[in-house]
């Protein structure tokens, strides 16, 4: 090994004293001994001197060193220089941490870093516990003394010398030497020297520690003192941060410092103090991350020191943030611990060098951190205490305000009293010379100032919002306003009261109720600037809030009280108004209304004299319809207006006048004499005008002779209401007549309408003509209260009059007697106008040659004749005689009666037309019914006949056929031929019956089809062809089928369609003698087109229409017999009933083609 090969200077040196020691023991002669002794002493002295020199130089060195590491380095290096030992180590033991550290370890000329470790075992521990030098000469000895064998092939050495030393009372240490080459390498003198050096070092270290401690303590004390000072001068937390930060920077030069404070609520790290390259900077709070140095320190509460490889170290903690924002070389992170909880940290960074922070620095920082933590905690507690104190004060103040308001309320103070109370309280609390409460009246846009105090109370009138700039500001902001200087106040546009000092500072807060601003509270301080801080503002706002709630309650209470009063008064007024209305309803006259209102007033106002005066402009007199004097109703003569100055004044101005004091003097102002309370002098009085529109036409006067202030504002209001009610009542009375008149007109119109309605109703209920006469007659009687009513009609043919309605003297008269026309009749027919005879009826009787009908004509005093008109014709008249008085009929009566007459004549005409129409309608209906019945009878008869005819035909046809077929017995050929003819004729008869039945059904409109769905046309055609097949063969005709292979199924009456096909095909066969018969069916989408074409004689064009007429055959000779002539008309009807059409195309000699169409889907036909 390299170590063992090396020759060590230490060994030579170590040998040297050892040899001398050995020499000293080799004493042979005295001289020699003495010489030796002298030599020895000399040597000893020399050695001592050498030792002393070393010690002295070390001590000199130590004296200039105050740092631990420098002292240790110095001692270590000196020991190395003296002994040239191969391995030198200085160990220190920290009692508090229980850790060993090796600030100095030199082996083979190289410094070695040894990590700290707990002092559990090892040779150093032995040395310290032995508390004396330990000199071991062999490897076995060394190992026996608990030496820890070094790794990597190192040995514990062959010799060991260790000396203990103490540092202060707390630290133990040891200085150790190893020799790797020789046993027993160290002698006594080495022990001594080493011990001396160790002791010197320990003293130096102790001094350094003491110095350090003193320094530290001084620094800490300084900081603590400053902090305490700061606290004493009420510095806030920031001030403490500043203080500590600055102090740290003062102690640690070239170092950036940070104070980081963690707020767990927001999870933010704040930087109240931070420097970058020695300059203060501002850094915004950042969220605390899970990783990073701050997070680590805060979480663990441990101090972190990074003296080397800072960047890499920092990265281990997952962060790249370095102190000061610049790459530092060394850094320290010290937690600020309060109540075992890290609340923040102190960070120091040195950008210049590594190992910038020693243990001592750490201790100082720790102390500073602790001091600061304590200081901060104290500051926080102080703050908290202060704020609690303030809160308590604030709460007390609030309670005081609330109590004031409550007390105010309880003692029924009005709002003003509450404002005063609150205003005074606020002034007290804030020691403000000025205070004001403002209220915003949003409807009027004015500012009320119910409380204003500036050294004394001020009364301030309402003013519009804009006249108060602060109010304007408040309305727009709705936020508290604070000003700290008069300049600030001026900037806001603030003004000061006249003759007032400048406001040095002050604040305003809004009075809010819900979201609405009701007003504001302001205080002003005349003594000092910045008198109020944010917390004062908060207090004032709190007070304002409390007050606004209380005031709102008070206001509501007030309002409720007021409304209650209003309601009561309204009720009283309503009672009076009701009385007046009742009076009106019972048709009292004007005087009654005066009495009513007057009495009511007396009822309400005791001990009061009352007068009602009404002005007559025509006579210029005041009438006094109601007067109470001294509790007695008295009659008062009209007064000239010129004698009643007060009344004249009230009438002229239309204004109410109240005199509650100095009544007599007040009267004199109006140049008025005493007119009221003629026997006593009133002390109070009220004059209320009676007005209609803008015009006063009278007045009510009340006077109280007993006391002044007898009439309060609510009394006045009530009187005004009464006056108004009375005016209205009087006006109503005036209007009553008018209304009556209008009512009559309306009634009349109603009567007319009633008549017309009755007549219309009569019509609707199909009354006959006489019923209409009765109706109208009765109506006239009812509605006009007529004594007599006549309705007469004329018959121009016989020139006679008929009495339709006669009512006289409460009795109906009936007569069928006809009266000839007379002059009156002619007159009415000619003039077509009503005739009114209001006087001298006797003369009229003679003039118009009237006949006395009911024997009462002599008594008639007035009479009216109203012609009943139908177009231009006079059909009769309505007559109303009156036996009581002349001039009984006014123009309006005549108009009304004319309306009746014309209504009636229209109704009568309508009835006549209705009757006529009904008659015609019934006749037509009867005729139609008869026709229908006849048709049905015919149809039923034919149907019955068909049935009756078929029964015997069944027997005939079947018997003949059975015989013909030989089913009954053998028949010969001749018999068969005859029987065949009989059968043929029978079947013809059957066809005839069928056709006749069909045609009669068709003509009676009783043809009914029975539709089947999904009918195959193809099958029907084939079935038909089967039937006629024999006939075709018989005549030798060729049948051509031209049937579309893809025919749809159709909806039709299958039997009827087959009947048509059979008719057409058998016709074709029948009339064709040679050639072909073609049957074709084509699909045309919505319908099928059928054609039956023959090569027969054809039908001339002019005959083609006839073949579809029943019972007609074309007379071509060829077309004859065999058919009933009904086939084609029946077929066409059947096809048309299906919604199709059937027609023929033919020319004479060219054959015939019969076509028909059949809809695929069923058509709904009318």
């Amino acid at each position, binding site marked *: 090994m390299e170590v063992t090969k090396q020759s060590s200077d230490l060994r030579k040196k170590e040998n040297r004293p050892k040899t001398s020691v050995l020499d000293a023991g080799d004493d042979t002669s005295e001289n020699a001994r003495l010489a030796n002794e002298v030599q020895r002493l000399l040597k000893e002295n020399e050695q001592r001197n050498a030792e002393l020199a070393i010690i002295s130089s070390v001590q000199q060195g130590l004296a200039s060193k105050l740092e631990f590491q420098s002292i240790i380095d110095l001692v270590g290096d000196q020991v190395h220089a003296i002994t040239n030992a191969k391995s030198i180590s200085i160990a220190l033991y920290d009692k508090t941490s229980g850790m060993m550290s090796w600030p100095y370890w030199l082996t083979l000329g190289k410094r070695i870093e040894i990590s700290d470790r707990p002092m559990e075992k090892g040779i150093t521990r032995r040395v310290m516990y032995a508390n004396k030098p330990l000199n071991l000469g062999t490897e076995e000895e060394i190992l026996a003394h608990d030496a820890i064998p070094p790794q990597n092939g190192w040995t514990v050495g062959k010799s060991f010398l260790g000396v203990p030393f103490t540092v202060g009372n707390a630290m133990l240490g040891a200085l150790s030497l190893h020799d790797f080459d020789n046993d027993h390498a160290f002698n006594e003198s080495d022990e001594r020297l080493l011990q001396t050096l160790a002791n010197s070092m320990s003293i130096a270290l102790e001094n350094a520690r003491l110095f350090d401690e003193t320094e530290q303590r001084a620094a800490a004390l300084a900081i603590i003192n400053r902090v305490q000072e700061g606290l004493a001068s009420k510095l806030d937390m920031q001030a403490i941060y500043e203080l500590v930060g600055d102090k740290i920077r003062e102690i640690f030069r070239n170092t950036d410092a940070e104070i980081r404070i963690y707020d767990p609520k927001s999870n933010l790290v704040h930087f109240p103090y931070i420097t970058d390259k020695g300059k203060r900077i501002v850094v915004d709070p950042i969220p605390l991350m899970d990783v990073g140095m701050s997070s680590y320190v805060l979480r663990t509460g441990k101090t972190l020191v990074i003296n080397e490889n800072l960047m890499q170290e920092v990265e281990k903690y997952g962060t790249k943030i370095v102190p000061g924002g610049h790459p530092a070389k060394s850094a320290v992170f010290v937690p600020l611990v309060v109540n075992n909880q890290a609340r923040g940290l102190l960070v120091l960074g040195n950008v210049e060098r590594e190992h910038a922070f020693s243990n001592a620095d750490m201790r100082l920082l720790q102390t500073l951190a602790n001091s600061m933590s304590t200081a901060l905690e104290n500051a926080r507690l102080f703050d908290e205490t202060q704020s609690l104190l303030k809160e308590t004060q604030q709460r007390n103040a609030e309670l005081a305000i609330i109590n004031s308001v409550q007390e105010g309320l309880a003692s029924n103070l009005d709002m003003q009293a509450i404002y005063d109370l609150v205003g005074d309280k606020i002034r007290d609390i804030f020691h403000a010379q000025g205070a004001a409460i403002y209220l915003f009246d949003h409807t009027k846009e004015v500012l009320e100032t119910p409380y204003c105090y500036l050294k004394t109370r001020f009364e301030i009138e309402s003013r519009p919002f804009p006249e108060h700039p602060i109010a304007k500001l408040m309305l727009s902001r709705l936020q508290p306003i604070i000003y700290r200087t008069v300049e600030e106040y001026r900037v806001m546009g603030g003004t000061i009261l006249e003759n007032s000092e400048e406001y040095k500072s002050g604040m305003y807060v809004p009075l809010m109720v819900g979201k609405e601003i009701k007003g504001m509270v302001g205080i002003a301080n005349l003594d000092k600037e910045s008198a109020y801080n944010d917390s004062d503002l908060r207090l004032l706002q709190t007070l304002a809030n409390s007050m606004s709630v209380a005031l709102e309650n008070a206001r509501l209470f007030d309002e409720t009280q007021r409304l209650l009063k209003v309601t009561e008064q309204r009720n009283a007024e309503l009672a009076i108004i009701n009385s007046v209305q009742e009076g009106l309803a019972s048709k009292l006259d004007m005087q009654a209304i005066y009495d009513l209102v007057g009495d009511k007033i007396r009822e309400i106002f005791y001990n009061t004299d009352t007068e009602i005066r009404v002005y007559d402009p025509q006579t210029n007199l005041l009438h006094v319809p109601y007067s109470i004097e001294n509790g007695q109703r008295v009659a008062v003569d009209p007064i000239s207006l010129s004698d009643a100055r007060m009344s004249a004044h009230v009438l002229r101005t239309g204004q109410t006048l109240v005199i509650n004091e100095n009544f007599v003097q007040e009267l004199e102002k109006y140049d008025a004499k005493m007119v009221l309370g003629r026997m006593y002098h009133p002390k109070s009085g009220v004059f209320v005008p009676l007005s209609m529109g803008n015009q006063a036409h009278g007045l009510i006067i009340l006077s109280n002779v007993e006391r002044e202030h007898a009439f309060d504002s609510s009394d006045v209001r009530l009187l005004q209401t009464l006056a108004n009610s009375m005016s209205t009542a009087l006006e109503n009375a005036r209007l009553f007549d008018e209304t009556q008149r209008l009512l009559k007109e309306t009634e009349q119109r109603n009567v007319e309408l009633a008549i017309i309605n009755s007549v219309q109703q009569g019509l609707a209920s199909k009354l006959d003509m006489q019923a209409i006469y009765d109706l109208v007659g009765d109506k006239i009687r009812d509605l006009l209260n007529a004594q007599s009513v006549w309705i007469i009609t004329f018959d121009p043919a016989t020139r006679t009059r008929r009495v339709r309605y006669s009512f006289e003297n409460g009795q109906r008269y009936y007569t069928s007697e006809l009266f000839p026309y007379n002059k009156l009749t002619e007159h009415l027919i000619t003039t077509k106008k009503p005739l009114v005879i209001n006087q001298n009826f006797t003369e009229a009787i003679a003039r118009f040659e009237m006949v006395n009908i009911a024997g009462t004509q002599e008594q008639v005093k007035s009479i009216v004749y109203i012609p009943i008109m139908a177009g231009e014709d006079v059909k009769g008249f309505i007559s109303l005689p009156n036996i009581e008085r002349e001039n009984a009929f006014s123009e309006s009566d005549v108009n009304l009666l004319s309306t009746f007459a014309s209504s009636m004549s229209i109704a009568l005409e309508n009835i006549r037309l209705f009757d006529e129409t009904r008659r015609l309608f019934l006749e037509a209906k009867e005729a139609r019914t008869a026709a229908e019945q006849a048709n049905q009878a015919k149809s039923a008869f034919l149907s019955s006949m*068909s049935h009756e005819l*078929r029964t015997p035909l*069944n027997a005939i046809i079947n018997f003949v056929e059975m015989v013909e077929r030989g089913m009954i017995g053998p028949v010969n050929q001749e018999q068969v031929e005859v029987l065949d003819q009989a059968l043929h004729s029978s079947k013809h008869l059957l066809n005839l019956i069928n056709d006749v039945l069909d045609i009669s059904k068709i003509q009676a409109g009783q043809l009914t089809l029975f539709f089947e769905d999904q009918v195959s046309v193809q099958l029907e055609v084939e079935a038909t062809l089967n039937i006629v097949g024999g006939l075709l063969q018989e005549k030798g005709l060729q049948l051509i089928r031209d049937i579309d292979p893809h025919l749809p199924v159709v909806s039709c009456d299958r039997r009827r369609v087959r009947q048509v096909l059979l008719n057409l095909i058998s016709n074709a066969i029948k009339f064709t003698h040679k050639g072909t018969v073609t049957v074709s069916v084509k699909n045309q989408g919505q319908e099928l087109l059928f054609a039956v074409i023959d090569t027969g004689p054809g039908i001339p064009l002019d005959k083609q229409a006839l073949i579809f007429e029943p019972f007609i055959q074309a007379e071509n000779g060829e077309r004859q017999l065999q058919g009933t002539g009904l086939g084609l008309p029946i077929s066409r009807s059947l096809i048309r009933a299906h919604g199709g059409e059937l027609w023929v195309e033919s020319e004479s000699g060219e054959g015939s083609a019969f076509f028909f169409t059949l809809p695929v889907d069923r058509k709904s036909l009318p």
Partner: protein
Amino acid sequence: VIDIDCLLCVEDDSSNRLVMKLLVEKTLNVRYYAIFEDSTDFLPRVRSLPVRPNIILLDIHVSPFNGFQMLNMIREDPVYFDTKVVALTASVMNEEVEKLRKSGFDGAIGKPITLSTFPVVIERIMNGESIWQV
């Protein structure tokens, strides 16, 4: 030609009764048949037949019970649940045929009866078809 155990006919016209007799005897294969000349005691008489009828031909215009009434009597007796009832009618109008259909007849044969098709129609009705040959 289908075998029929028993056939009943009600026909009030004597000539037509003869026609029916001949038709049944000459064109059908019937073991036992009866022809009533009116409908007096219709149901008791049907019940007193020695054999339960397989098919009944009813003239409609018969008294005292008409064809419809007789049909109802048969239909209300469960003994005749599978007996075919056919109307014999001289009324061939559509309305009348429709009335027969709705009343529950199994078919109808119009008068005059067509000799050539009569047995075919009877056989088809016996086989469950509903035939309205009028």
